[in-house]
């Protein structure tokens, strides 16, 4: 028993299974005993618990005052770098069952000479909790003896708002990846059963996102314009007689999201649902150049008739069902570089393509104006965003802007002043970046006064994220099947992001109430060394976007997150401390 030890570290200190701190995390920030945490009602407080020792053990945790504690075992992802010795980085979090038997070295993770095991500890403060300090304890049992670690959780006199003030979005594409990740869930299912399992799994991804104060988006159609049957009602006829005919799969998929029903329960293996079961923030639609109208008739009267009649029907269906709160996102994702269409729906490079957007918007408005449905015209703008802001604005716009947004503070302000919705997009950091790196884009979003940020892909951690991990920058949500969980599991990155969102929610709600939001925003911005706006490079000022490229802009256009390395690993503390200062 004497071999085992417990130590606590802050959430931004990750260590490998041998006790070495992740290079990007600087020095280990040990938390002494008792571990002192602070949280608002409806919020989580977290830390990392490290167990050193050898042999069998079990862990348990409890806190008084009706607070909940959850433990997750960190998975050490095996990574390699150009023939060098493999190294291990913790990220995926496997929820611990009650009285689960554990062993060091961990036979599941298969790390030769593993010396320690990290656990993520989440303490949740229910909304009705009493303010004040609540005591708790983590207990490790091994060989009939116990060792413990005391906790003190201060519940502050503030409650988190039901909905986050900025939307941090997890994007995803299609659903075929689920069958690859969950072969046991699917078994040999086909037809209706296959689609039912797909919908169930997708709902779990929506749930895990919501419970981490983020949103999941799942686009149903590919660049060709076609997708699987759960994303659109069936369609029949052509021209004047074209109709949407069978809503069964569409309703099974979207109904519970648009009513909020999905969020009444949690994803399997994870803590109970704690967020309010409200209708989802927004969903994509199946509308694209080849749905519901046949592109064969683009530019002809039949295209308009098919498009307007069917979109009217979709609108009527949403109204009839009462699904009018969530944003229904009319969005065009195709890119001409993939050769299906002659114009860019997404990340448009050529100004001439604006005319096609305008044609589509005209048809959409013809079909949906006026309507109680919360329709928005979502445009993912990059090269041409400055021009698009002017030429395509004024249509219930929802802009999702690429990294070039950095160059346009005045233009963005004008768009915000028009009352339009503005997000921007990029990626998650790879797991070997600083543990606090997922907060960088959250900070930029809030500090610039934007409404949200879209992580362009968040459910795809790679072919073998467990033993041959390439950084999992596109997958902070992992499949749980190898741990016997028929649904997704979270990661340290997702939890760090959630905790940061909580801080922003607390900060903004208090500062807004006190009428000093902009003052507070500016005061913190002075202390956070992240540049929010930049001058465009000379090529961007001299040339039209059609002539910009990665070489003359000296930047890659694809959304790969390059975490700022000069930041202190615990730079976010400034934001968190200010949030709690506002409570006092």
């Amino acid at each position, binding site marked *: 028993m004497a071999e085992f030890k417990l130590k606590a570290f802050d959430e931004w200190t990750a260590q490998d299974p041998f006790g070495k701190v992740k290079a990007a995390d600087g020095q280990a920030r040990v938390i002494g005993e008792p571990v002192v945490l602070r949280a608002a009602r409806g919020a989580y407080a977290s830390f990392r618990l490290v167990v050193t020792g050898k042999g069998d053990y079990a862990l348990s945790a409890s806190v008084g005052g009706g607070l909940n504690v959850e433990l997750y075992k960190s998975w050490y992802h095996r990574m390699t770098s150009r023939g060098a010795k493999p190294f291990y980085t913790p990220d995926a979090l496997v929820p611990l069952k009650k009285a689960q038997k554990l062993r060091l070295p961990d036979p599941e993770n298969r790390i030769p000479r593993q010396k320690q095991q990290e656990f993520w500890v989440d303490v949740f403060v229910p909304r009705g909790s009493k303010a004040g300090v609540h005591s708790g304890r983590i207990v490790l049992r091994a060989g009939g003896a116990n060792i413990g670690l005391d906790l003190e959780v201060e519940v502050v006199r503030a409650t988190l708002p039901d909905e986050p003030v900025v939307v941090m979005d997890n994007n995803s*594409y*299609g*659903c*075929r990846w689920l069958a690859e990740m969950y072969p046991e869930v699917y078994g040999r299912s086909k037809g209706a059963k296959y689609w039912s399992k797909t919908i169930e799994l997708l709902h779990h991804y929506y749930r895990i996102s919501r419970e981490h104060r983020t949103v999941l988006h799942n686009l149903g159609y*590919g*660049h*060709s314009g*076609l*997708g*699987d049957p759960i994303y659109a009602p069936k369609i029949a006829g052509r021209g004047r007689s074209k109709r949407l005919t069978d809503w069964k799969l569409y309703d099974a998929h979207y109904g519970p999201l648009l009513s909020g029903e999905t969020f009444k329960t949690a994803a399997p293996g994870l803590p109970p649902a704690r967020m309010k079961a409200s209708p989802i923030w927004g969903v994509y639609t199946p509308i694209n150049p080849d749905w519901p109208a046949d*592109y*064969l008739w*683009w*530019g002809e009267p039949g295209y308009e008739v098919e498009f307007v009649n069917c979109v009217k029907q979709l609108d009527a269906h949403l109204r009839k069902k009462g699904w009018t709160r969530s944003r229904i996102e009319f969005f065009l994702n195709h*890119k*001409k*570089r*993939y*050769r*299906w*269409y*002659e*114009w860019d729906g997404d990340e448009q*490079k*050529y100004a*001439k393509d604006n005319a*096609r957007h305008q044609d589509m918007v005209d048809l959409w408005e013809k079909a949906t104006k006026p309507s109680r449905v919360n329709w928005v015209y979502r445009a993912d703008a990059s090269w041409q965003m400055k021009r698009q802001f002017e030429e395509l604005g004024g249509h219930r716009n929802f802009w999702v802007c690429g990294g070039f947004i950095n160059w346009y503070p005045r233009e963005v302000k004008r768009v915000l002043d028009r009352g339009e919705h503005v997000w921007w997009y990029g990626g998650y950091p790879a797991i070997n970046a600083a543990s606090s790196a997922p907060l960088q884009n959250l900070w930029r979003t809030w500090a610039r006064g934007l409404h949200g940020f879209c992580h362009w892909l968040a459910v795809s951690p790679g072919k073998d994220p467990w033993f041959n991990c390439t950084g999992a920058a596109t997958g902070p949500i992992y499949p749980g099947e190898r741990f016997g969980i028929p649904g997704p599991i979270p990661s340290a990155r997702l939890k760090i992001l959630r905790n940061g969102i909580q801080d922003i929610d607390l900060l903004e709600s208090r500062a807004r109430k006190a009428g000093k939001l902009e003052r507070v925003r500016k005061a913190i911005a002075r202390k956070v060394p992240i540049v929010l706006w930049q001058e465009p490079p000379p090529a961007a000022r001299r040339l039209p976007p*059609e002539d910009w*490229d*990665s*070489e003359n802009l000296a930047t*890659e*256009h*694809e959304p790969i997150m390059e975490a700022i390395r000069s930041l202190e690993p615990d730079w976010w503390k400034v934001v968190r401390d200010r949030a709690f200062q506002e409570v006092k």
Partner: protein
Amino acid sequence: MVRPTLKKVTAELLEAARVAGVMVDGELAGKIISERAMRYIKYPNPRYRFMTGDYYDVDHDSFLLMKKTLLRLGRLVDFPCGTSLWLQVPGKKNEMTCVVQNFKLHRYYRFGAGSQPAAPEMIKCLKTGEVVLAPAHKDLVTTLAPVRDSLGDVVGVVEFCSPNPGSKTLVPAWS
């Protein structure tokens, strides 16, 4: 709907390819991709892998005309059929670029590729100017039609691609 036999699928795709060999205009095909886009297809920047895609641009009218032609050709058969137009990259022997495609069925297209080596059956179609049936594939049946310009030169091929009736995999949804 009754599932067609392999024999029927093959025969109808060969017939569709024969029609395409007559209907698809090689001169129109050559006007679709902009000169600059073709330059970047031919000479991709080794440092910036997305640059060829960033510069990809087409003449809207020519593209649309070709796309509609291919859509109609794909509907000559009464089962799912993808149609794609491939052109030779000028000055690069046996290197092809996809110019227009429809539906989600394709045998050769690599997602995001600016150009790619011609499959042997494409080379055969280009050389002989005849309709070619691609080698057997467990999931797909493919035929190729020659595309001629006004000089009678074969400048590209149209790919017809349908599910092999014997296939047990779902038709791809995401391309």
